[in-house]
């Protein structure tokens, strides 16, 4: 009886969207790596990784999530060790250590750490005695996120590290934290962003900060403890940022500044964004045709098979192709959140939210980057970009979501 019910419970829209994106990804990687040069023919390796990823997804979907659950803390521990190992022995590229090499294998532990963190967070936040209106119950989850966040940020990989707080915020919200409290809790983050837009050593910054805090506090009316903590945190960020900014890597600062104004430095860091926008824009409605992209084909587009693969889709397949990809991603994410809403088990529901949010974060930050509306952070596009670890981990994420879908009626 139970066996018969299983199959129809798979989320078919999500499954089909995932399958289509993987096919589009393979075709695009093929196009991006048939260009003569260093990356020629990499699509064959991607195909090999895909087989492995599908196998992993099958396993992730088959085993009951409770089995994964029991593995959550050991996995989390191992991934933290791997992150430390990256900092110690990692392979560098573009001034950052992000990869570990094990013989012929090269993988990115931050991807594994992300999934492990979702698991431990889901477990922690689904604890029956948890009460998020209690201030001290915030700290264990915060700590669980802070450690991998700090380790990844140290690599440095700003883009991936920011996915941890994004996951935490969504899961806090899902676990029942009031929106107002969440906003106040996030306010130091807004202050952080503000410190890049305005000079924290000058008056306009302080005026904006003060006005913003007054408005938020007036709307939320927090309890005294929360209010004091939030104020202290905001002031802490405001005072610390000038010092932190001085210590940021040059290329990190440049990327942020370039994001704010890419045309100011067309030869340097702005080059990638400009070339990506040219690629997408010149694709027009229908695109230049598969394998016909000139931005891609003549190597003007940097990292065309990895971080900027969406630009290849935009150039060769035009608005129709790009929108198709966007809609497929939207389908997966909306179906994912809907799944979380209908899942009866609290742990499984939180797991789904965390996994979908991690996925969502990567997709949206990457695509916004390629059209020039987000800074160049070095994030791959899930399911499309070339890269073994990310492909396997993303497939496992989707497998786990199907796992939850299969068992969504269990308590």
């Amino acid at each position, binding site marked *: 009886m139970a066996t018969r019910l299983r199959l129809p419970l798979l989320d078919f829209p999500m499954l089909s969207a995932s399958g289509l994106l993987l096919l589009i990804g393979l075709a695009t990687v093929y196009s991006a790596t048939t260009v003569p040069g260093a990356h020629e023919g990499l699509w064959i390796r991607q195909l090999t990784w895909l087989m492995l990823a599908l196998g992993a997804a099958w396993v992730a979907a088959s085993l009951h999530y409770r089995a994964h659950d029991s593995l959550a803390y050991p996995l989390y521990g191992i991934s933290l060790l791997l992150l430390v190992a990256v900092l110690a022995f990692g392979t560098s590229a573009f001034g950052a250590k992000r990869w570990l090499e094990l013989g012929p294998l090269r993988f990115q532990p931050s991807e594994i750490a992300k999934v492990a963190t979702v698991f431990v967070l889901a477990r922690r936040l689904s604890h029956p005695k948890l009460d998020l209106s209690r201030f001290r119950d915030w700290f264990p989850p915060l700590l669980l996120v802070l450690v991998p966040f700090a380790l990844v940020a140290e690599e440095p990989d700003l883009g991936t590290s920011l996915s941890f707080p994004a996951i935490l915020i*969504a899961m806090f919200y899902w676990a029942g934290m009031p929106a107002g409290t969440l906003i106040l809790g996030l306010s130091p983050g807004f202050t952080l962003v503000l410190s890049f837009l305005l000079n924290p050593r000058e008056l306009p910054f302080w005026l904006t900060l003060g006005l913003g805090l007054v408005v938020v506090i007036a709307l939320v009316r927090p309890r005294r403890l929360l209010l004091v903590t939030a104020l202290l945190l905001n002031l802490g960020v405001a005072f610390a940022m000038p010092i932190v900014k001085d210590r940021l890597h040059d290329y990190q600062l440049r990327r942020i500044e370039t994001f704010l104004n890419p045309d100011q430095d067309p030869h*340097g860091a702005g080059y990638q964004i400009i070339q990506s926008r040219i690629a*997408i*824009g010149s694709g*027009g*409605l229908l695109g230049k045709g598969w394998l016909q992209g000139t*931005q891609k084909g003549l190597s*003007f587009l940097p990292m065309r098979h990895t971080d900027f693969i969406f630009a290849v889709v935009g150039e060769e397949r035009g608005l129709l192709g790009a929108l198709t990809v966007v809609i497929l991603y*939207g389908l997966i994410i909306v179906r994912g959140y809907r799944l979380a809403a209908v899942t009866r088990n609290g742990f499984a529901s939180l797991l789904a939210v965390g996994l979908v949010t991690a996925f969502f974060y990567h997709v949206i930050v990457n695509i916004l980057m390629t059209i020039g509306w987000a800074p160049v952070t070095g994030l791959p596009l899930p399911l499309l970009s070339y890269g073994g670890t990310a492909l396997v981990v993303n497939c496992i994420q989707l497998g786990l979501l199907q796992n939850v879908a299969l068992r969504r009626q269990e308590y």
Partner: protein
Amino acid sequence: MLATLALGAFALVGLGLLRLQIAEYARYRQLSEENRVRLEVLRAPRGAIFDRNGELLADSYPAFNIMFRPMPAESTERVRATAQPGWLHRVSALVELDPAEVRQLVRIANTSGNSAVLRRDAPPPVLAAIEEYRGELPGIEVVVEPLRRYPHGSLAAHLLGYAGEINEAELTARAADGYRPGDLIGRSGVERSGEQNLRGRDGAEYVVVNAMGRRVSTYADVEPRSPVAGRDLVLTLDLKVQQALEEAMAGVDRGAAVAIDPRDGGILGMLSRPVYDPNEFSHGLSQESWLEMSRGGSNPLLNRAIQGIYPPGSTFKIVTMITALRNGLVRPGTHMPQPCHGSYQFGGRSFGCWKPEGHGTLDLVGALQHSCDVYFYQLGLRVGLPRLEATARAFGLGERTGVGLPQETSGLMPGPAWYDKRWGAGRWRKGVLLNLAIGQGEILATPLQLALMVAEAAGYGRALRPHVVLRVGDGTNGGADRPAQSGVVADREAWEALHTGLELVVESGTGTAARVPGVAVAGKTGTAQNPHGRDHALFVCYAPVEHPTIAMAIVVENSGHGGSIAAPVAGQVLRRLFLPDSLQRAAPVAVAAAADTDTAGVAHGD
């Protein structure tokens, strides 16, 4: 709520895509074309230059230049690569240039956006090495461009001139003529005056390049424009004459020689010493060599044949004599009241003859033959300054000859007006006339003017139009339609007397060193007084006397007397041209011996 947030974010992405791909499609489409399509100039070869017999004097050949080309949209990878010391050192080692120099060139190229030539006309081994490592050296390209070549090296360097890469100032000044950076432009000589003909019209083609700036294919949508080669120039120059001049003048430190065809005024040869090799300019002159050339005391860039000015000395007696004869003031047999005793008293001053012991009594022809100054002082007083000036100007003195070479100097032929201006009306003495009559004093002439003077004298005063371009390669005339000057009008008797005198100068007068066995040569020696050092030696001549085919002027600076220094040079040239090879070797000995005895009498004269 989370799903709504996600939908909102994706709607934002959709808006972004709409804006890029629909609203701004045209702009980005164009940008992507500009990215990959580059205009490449196809350099038109400059026209070649030939002598009158079709011997090649200058042409262009395809040279392989190693260039650094910055991209309009520089890729991050490229900037990084070219800034690395590894890149710099490898490139410097390959082009065999100092790394500091390469860094400087690359920096300028990157800031200006213009290509930089790292090595012009690279030899095959360097090219092979570059080709081998090209994939690893972003920005480095091998470009074929025509380079100027002068196969005879420094031969006729001043006449031919040289062509160099156009500079910033010239680009601004001649922007309307369509010059581009990297173009060759004639800087001096025929290269400059013939620029309009020599210069071709560059072609252009559009090519598809990749992000590293490497050419991938030609761009099919726009037809390439083929380059049109410049027109060839055929000069009046005769390589044989020029070579004879070069050989004869080889030992001269500073001086000039001009050979003219007295029948039509075509320049047969022109030489100025010291000399330079124009090929050096094609390869890009180093700062030091340029300074050495342009500032050095002897200034090899100066074309002394048209820019050097010298007092004509006794060669000017040709003019004084013709002035007197054409105005009917004397006859060829006329004696002057006062015979020559070595000096002449005038206005309380003593004017010496070059021969202190004196010439005794001479008629006009004899006075020319022996270059008697005392006779010519009296003759000068008889003709007067206005007549002398008019005749000199009719011979082309004091005016640019219009030979068609840049920067020609006019020299100076002073007349009453000039002296009035210089000293005030009536405040100068008639004594100046004595000096002028023997070609000393304020009068100055270029070697070309002197050659023209003697050529016109040879041709019975018929006006000549000196020119260097015989014809333009496509058949059009080299400018023979330019108006000729007036010429010198005198009766036949006058000219024949002059010719007799000039022939006697070489036969048994002051110019015996210019004798050629079997060929009648007419000439006149001259010694230009030089207040700054030793006198300049001059000699003008034409041959053969019966039907002159060549007229020459030779100037040797700071060397001594015309008869002993300049006349032998002319003699060597004429023997080389008129005697068969077998006789040439023996001839100089015989002639030198004859010259020794003959010039013994004029050892201190001109």
